[in-house]
């Protein structure tokens, strides 16, 4: 990539005045560095990823409201986690976390376990429990 080809497409980085460093060649073919404001293909990939996450969050929310899954599954999506990551945060096996997705199991969870999930999601136990209503 030549230095004058380093992309300067507006991105979420521009919004916070952040620029990325790129390696590029000058007119004599010698390597130098240049700052980039962003690159459209990257922005498109990011937007796509965010849309995907938002769809997952919305779908989980509906399922919680319908009583099909517990709020834990919703908060997992909200925090861009998957079962493996959530399990390591709360120090449980993946099958245990999956079980906690069942509303009937969730109802019977002890205060201690609920607290572990609440801490992981940065909310209170009350918020975790009541999230079905809002």
């Amino acid at each position, binding site marked *: 990539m030549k230095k004058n080809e380093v992309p300067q497409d507006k991105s979420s980085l521009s919004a916070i005045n952040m620029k990325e460093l790129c*390696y590029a060649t000058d007119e004599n073919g010698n390597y130098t560095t240049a700052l980039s404001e962003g690159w459209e293909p990257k922005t*498109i990939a990011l937007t796509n990823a965010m849309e995907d996450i938002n769809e997952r969050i919305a779908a989980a929310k509906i399922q919680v409201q319908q009583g099909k899954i517990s709020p834990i599954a919703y908060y997992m999506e909200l925090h861009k986690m998957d079962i493996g990551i959530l399990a390591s945060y709360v120090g449980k096996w993946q099958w245990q976390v999956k079980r906690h997705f069942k509303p009937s199991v969730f109802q019977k969870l002890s205060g201690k376990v609920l607290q572990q999930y609440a801490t992981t999601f940065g909310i209170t136990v009350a918020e975790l429990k009541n999230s079905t209503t809002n």
Partner: protein
Amino acid sequence: MQLDFTHHQSAHCENGVASNLLKNNGLAISEPMVFGIGSGLFFVYLPFIKVNHAPAISYRPLPGMIFNRMARRLGITIKRQKFGSEEKASRALNEKLDEKIPVGLQVGVYNLTYFPDEYRFHFNAHNLVVYGKEGDNYLISDPVMQTVTTLTTEELNRVRFAKGAFAPKGQLYYPIHIPKDIDYKKAIHKAIRQTCRDMLAPVPIVGVRGIKFVARQIRKWPVKYGNKKANHYLAQMVRMQEEIGTGGGGFRFIYAAFLQEASVLLHNEQLNILSAEMTAIGDSWRDFAVQASRVYKNRSAQTDVYNTLADQLLDIANREEVFFKKLRKAI
């Protein structure tokens, strides 16, 4: 308390931290040199591991390896420590700062508050330097940022003890010995040989063969997984390639910069010619990203567009195969 430390922005976090820590210890070494001597260029396709619900593709070796290999080849000793508790980790960090030693930390990205929201995902192999503490604020030099920043004790603890794959466990590291005379020639020879060996490895998911494997898989994605999933996989591939540590084009440009620097050090003109060739291959990786982004932006999953992309990737793989065979002979 603020230590004497100069922040230099870099394209990739691990190279940047290594280069910044060594520069701070009086060894002028560029980011491309760190990347090249650490044999940072790599490719592995791990379809059985899912990252963000898509098959994992890594354009680099395991976290920490670039710095470790580079250190070993240059005779530098690095001390690395992991901790069982936040208290111990904090105490060790504060002790080092009291001793006026800036330290590198491995951290999770998700809770790095100074990143834009969409850049914050669960990736635990990010690196930064702590070079001081003022009140409750740690002074942070994150090499991918233009300027230095700060994190509170609580924020720093959270990123040091992020969970999941590559959990940092509070890991900190710093160089403890840098030899006076460094034999760059020998190190560069070893490093280039390893990169050629990795990229030409007779393993179906590694190096050039790995890239060819992905190219074959891409053709099948729309039929096998349907429109939505195929597009998601492709978008994730571009994210891993161009955003998460600048894997595809970005790494090729850093490697080309390394070859150029090495060509001067080794008085080997052939390396400079190969540097230009690597730059052209890097440009092709970027063209691939442009084409791929069009495909999933338009939500198109016709097999012909996927076939075109696969052809493009296959062409890159073939060119890299020729390139690394030439590079192996050039040193």
